[in-house]
C-alpha cells in the first residue's frame, strides 16, 4: 500500500478552482517531484496536505490513516513535515533551538520539571541536544549551532528548515522549492543531502521545484500541475518527454 494516497483532492477560493481532482500515490522511500508553472497550485497542494487549508473535496490517506480535514498539529503528529517556499525559521532562536522545537513532540517533560530543573529535565534536554546536533551534522550546520537562525546565510537557512522538519520524525517530508535562490554549487550539495536523507532516514519525499536539473537528477516520479489540474503523471523520463508537458511548462 502506498504511504500517501490522495484521491480527488480539491479546493476553491471564491470562484477560482485552485486545485481540482488531484490524485497522487507515493510509495515508501520514493522521491517524488511536483512541478508546474507558477500559480498552478503546487503550494496549495502542500497547504491542503498539511491542513493549512481545508479541502472541499477528496480524501488524504497517510499510511492507511485518514487525515483529511485534520488540524496542522495533528497532521504533524501523524507524520507529515514540511518546509516553506519563503523560509520560515524561528529567527530569534539559535540554530540548535530551532531543531529542538522540531523535537518538541518526541521528547517530553512536564512544565514543572522544566521550571524546577528536576532530573527529568536534565535527562531529556541532554537527549534533545544530542539528537539535534546529530541532525545539524547531517546538514553541515553544527558549526553554527549557537548562531541566531536569522544570521545564517541563505543556503544554510534552507538546510536548517529541512533539519527542523526532519526533527519531527516524519513519515513524509514535503519540500517547497528547496533549491530556490541557490547557486549551482549549493544546489548540487543540496541534491546530495536530499539523497542522503532519503537513504539514511528511509524517508519518503515529495518536493516542489523549478530547477529541472535537480528534478531530473533525483526524482523518480513526477506529477505536473497546470491550472490546478494534473497534466501528466508517472516516471520522470516519461513525463519530461510528454509533449503536453513540454508545451505547458518546459518549452520547446
Amino acid at each position, binding site marked *: 500500500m502506498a504511504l500517501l494516497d490522495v484521491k480527488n483532492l480539491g479546493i476553491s477560493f471564491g470562484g477560482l478552482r485552485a486545485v481540482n481532482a488531484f490524485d497522487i500515490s507515493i510509495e515508501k522511500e520514493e522521491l517524488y517531484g511536483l512541478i508546474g508553472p507558477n500559480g498552478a497550485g503546487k503550494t496549495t497542494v502542500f497547504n491542503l496536505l*498539511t491542513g*493549512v487549508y481545508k479541502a472541499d473535496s477528496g480524501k488524504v490517506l497517510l499510511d492507511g490513516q485518514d487525515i483529511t480535514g485534520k488540524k*496542522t*498539529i495533528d497532521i*504533524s*503528529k501523524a507524520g507529515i*513535515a*514540511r518546509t*516553506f517556499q519563503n523560509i*520560515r*525559521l*524561528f*529567527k*530569534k*532562536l*539559535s540554530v*540548535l*533551538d530551532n531543531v*529542538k*522545537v*522540531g523535537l*518538541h*513532540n518526541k*521528547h*517530553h*517533560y512536564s*512544565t514543572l520539571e*522544566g*521550571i*524546577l*530543573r528536576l532530573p527529568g*529535565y536534565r535527562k*531529556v*534536554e541532554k537527549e*534533545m*541536544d544530542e539528537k539535534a*546536533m546529530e541532525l545539524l551534522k547531517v546538514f553541515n550546520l553544527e558549526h553554527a*549551532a*549557537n548562531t541566531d537562525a536569522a544570521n545564517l546565510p541563505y543556503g544554510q537557512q534552507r538546510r536548517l528548515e529541512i533539519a*527542523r*522538519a526532519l*526533527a*519531527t520524525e516524519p513519515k513524509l517530508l514535503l519540500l517547497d522549492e528547496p533549491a530556490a535562490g541557490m547557486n549551482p554549487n549549493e544546489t548540487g550539495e543540496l541534491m546530495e543531502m536530499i539523497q542522503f536523507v532519503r537513504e539514511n532516514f528511509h524517508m519518503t519525499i515529495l518536493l516542489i521545484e523549478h530547477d529541472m536539473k535537480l528534478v531530473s537528477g533525483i526524482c523518480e516520479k513526477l506529477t505536473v500541475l497546470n491550472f490546478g489540474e494534473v497534466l501528466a503523471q508517472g516516471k520522470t523520463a516519461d513525463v519530461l518527454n510528454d509533449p503536453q508537458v513540454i508545451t505547458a511548462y518546459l518549452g520547446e
Partner: protein
Amino acid sequence: MLKKMTKNTKSNLITYGIVIVAFVVMQTLISAGSISSLLEGLMVPICIYVILAVSLNLVVGILGELSLGHAGFMCVGAFSSAFFSKCMRDVITVDIVRFLLALLIGIVTAAVFGILIGIPVLRLKGDYLAIVTLAFGEIIKNLVNVLYIGKDANGFHFSTKDVMALNMEADGTVIVNGPQGITGTPKDATFLIGFILILITLFIVLNLINSRDGRAIMSIRDNRIAAESVGINVTKYKLMAFTISAALAGAAGVLYAHNLSTLTANTNNFGYNQSIMILVFVVLGGIGNIRGSIIAAVVLTLLPELLRGLDDYRMLIYAIVLIVMMLFNWAPKVIEWRERHLRFGRRKKEAVE
C-alpha cells in the same frame, strides 16, 4: 553547545547576582540608618514593579503579544488577597502564615482570571489583543469600585449598590466598601518578602524560557505558521504564557495590598496608567530582556522620588531620562555603536579563553 549552555546560565546568574547584591546593599544601608525614610518606603513598591515588569515581559517579549491589562491582574490579586487577610485577621494570628495563604489566594485568583480572559482573548492578535486587554483592565477596576461586601453573624452579604443595600445585622462589618475599598489590611509586606518574591519570579520566568515550553512559546512569537507545522499547540502555549504572567502579576498585587492599610482601585494604581507604566518598563528595558526590565523598573520608580527636591523640573527630567533610555536601547546609531564595542569586548574575551 556547552559554551551556549554556560553563556545562558552565566547571563542568568548575573541577573540573580545583581538582584541579590542590590538587596544586600540596600538592607545594610537601611539597618545602618543611612537612608531616608522616603527611600526606605520605596523598597516594597520597587519590588512590586520589578515583578510586574518581569511578568509582563513574559507576554510582550517572550510570547510577543501586546497586553495592556496587566494592572487588571494585579488588581485581582490585590483585592482577593486583601479580602482574605481582612477576614482572617483575627482567626490566623501568625502574620507570616496568613500572608502566605493570602499570597496563594492572590496568585490562584489572578491565574484563574488569566485563563478565563485568555481563552477568548488570545484568539486576537496585535492591536486587537491590546485593545481588549486594556478594556479588561478597566472593567476589573470599575467592578471593584462598585463592589460592597459585608459580614455579620449570618455570613457574607454582597451588593453592587451601597452599604445600606447589604442588609446586615447591627454587628456586621463592611469588608469591601465600594470606592473606599478595603481598609485595615494587615501590613505584612516587607522588603525581604518582596526580594524573595522577585527571586521566585526570576526563577520561574528564566527557567521557563530555557525549557521545552519556553522554546515552544518563543517559536510562536517568531513564526506561528512554522510552529504549527512542527506540531506546536499554539493555543496551549499562548495560554500558558499568559496565565503564568497573570499569576505573577497577582503576586505583585498581593504585595501591593499588604503594603498599604487602605486599598482602593483608582486610575493610578490599577488603571490604564499603571498598565502603560509597566509596559514602559518592559519596552525601555528591552523587549524580551529580563534583566533590562528589572533595571528599568528600579530606575524609573526611584527617579521621580529622588528628583522630588527639584519640584517643577522633576517630570521634565523624568521625561528626558525616558527619551535617553529609549535612544540608548533602540536608536540604530547607538545600537551600532554598542555592537562595535560589545563585539570588541567579546573578541577580547574569546582570546583570553
